């Protein structure tokens, strides 16, 4: 009796795990990344998918700013990047000179409203402190690993971004605000599966 149970359990587990493996393979992201700064956390971790022969890249990222770095803040962002060009440099290296994209980031916390609280007259504040829309670029260096390595690629990237509110400030003060004041950066490492 005991043996039958053990066998059944083993079978069930086996079935579950293969099932799981299949769905995971289907849903498993194409890459995972870890990022420093980039207006989405002191450190952030994310993952995403690539489409159209990797010319389009989407990702979701969670970022955290600890109290010692001006937090505590929790952020969540979603991004879409278009990769117009890539340059092969040798058999293993690839350079992506300039990808361009959008990033929407959500700032968690009661101090950041998405909908203007009812105590204010309509349009008292026209923007949403909880949500920033970023315009971003990314340049990266990708190292292609051999097939046996288990992971496909390893990339390092530098991202530049500005957001809706910085842009508004810049456009209305182009004589005074400098580009360097409204463009912010981040760097990261991406692992492609």
């Amino acid at each position: 009796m005991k043996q039958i149970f053990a066998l059944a359990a083993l079978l069930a587990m086996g079935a579950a795990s293969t099932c799981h493996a299949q769905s995971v393979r289907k849903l498993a992201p194409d890459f995972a990344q870890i990022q420093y700064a980039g207006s989405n956390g002191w450190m952030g971790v994310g993952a995403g998918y690539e489409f159209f022969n990797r010319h389009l890249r989407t990702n979701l990222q969670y970022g955290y700013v600890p109290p010692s770095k001006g937090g505590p803040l929790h952020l969540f962002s979603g991004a879409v990047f278009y990769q117009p060009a890539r340059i092969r440099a040798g058999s293993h290296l690839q350079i992506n000179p300039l990808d361009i994209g959008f990033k929407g980031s959500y700032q968690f916390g009661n101090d950041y409203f998405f909908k203007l609280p009812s105590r204010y007259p309509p349009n008292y504040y026209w923007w949403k402190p909880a949500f920033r829309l970023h315009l971003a670029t990314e340049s990266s260096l990708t190292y292609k690993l051999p097939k046996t390595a288990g992971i496909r690629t390893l990339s390092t990237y530098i991202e530049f971004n500005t957001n809706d509110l910085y842009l508004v400030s810049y456009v209305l003060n182009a004589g005074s605000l400098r580009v360097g004041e409204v463009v912010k950066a981040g760097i990261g490492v991406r692992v492609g599966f």
Partner: protein
Amino acid sequence: MKNKTNLLKLLRNAKQYLIFLTLLTFITSCDQFEFSPNQSFDHSSPSNLNAQNLARLRQNAEDDTVTIVFAGDTQRWYDEQERFVKKVNSLENVDLVLLAGDISDFGILQEFKWVHKRLSALRVPYFGIIGNHDMVANGRQIFQQMFGPLNYSFVYGGIKFIAHNTNGLEAPGENIPDIGWLGHELNNSEGAKYIVTVSHVPPFNASEFGTASVKPYTELLQNTPNLLLSLHGHVHQHQDFYPFGDKVHYMTSFSFEQSAFLLLQIVNGKVLKSIINY
């Protein structure tokens, strides 16, 4: 032979590693690396500006005239801030600048830094007062970190300046304005000859000030002897009047959008006002 090549490789790697580390420290210490627009400080944001500026003010030789540049609502007008600084620096005998709130527009750290970067070129000390826009998002923490307490006072040239938070609509249920604190300050334990109060939202903008606070606040001011002025920003136009039918003299500042400020010269309790365009 093999050991030698290995050693060379190792050295080369170490060199690369060192270059990488140097680059990383350079990169991470630069201002470009932002963690969030809402972070309350970064490695180069200043702190305790009001206290520092008070220390600078104390180095002045005080005479019988106190000359104040009164402005408010720097907000998103950076071009104007630069012209403002040039104009103020061209004036002689200015003691201090009072900036009556809405230093930022979106309550974001970068804005506070952009404004301070420009105003730090002033020859005279300036004092920041919190505005309603400075309380949006993480603004309150940013203001506190950069300028110091939201309610503060100091005596200079025989005048007690009482700067305080009157942005009641931003935080309903909180003690804004803090009537108890204000009453204590207006008691003038320092024995200053005159008093000037300065805050952002004026009490005649009742809903933004906090309707319930209007009466106790205005009564407090009414009952303060030697109160010369109640200064405010927020309305983006210059007003100079007695709106409550009492003896309290209310004055509001121009915003930076209007490229003008008020020069207040106070001599023996008399206020001489000039409007200065820039």
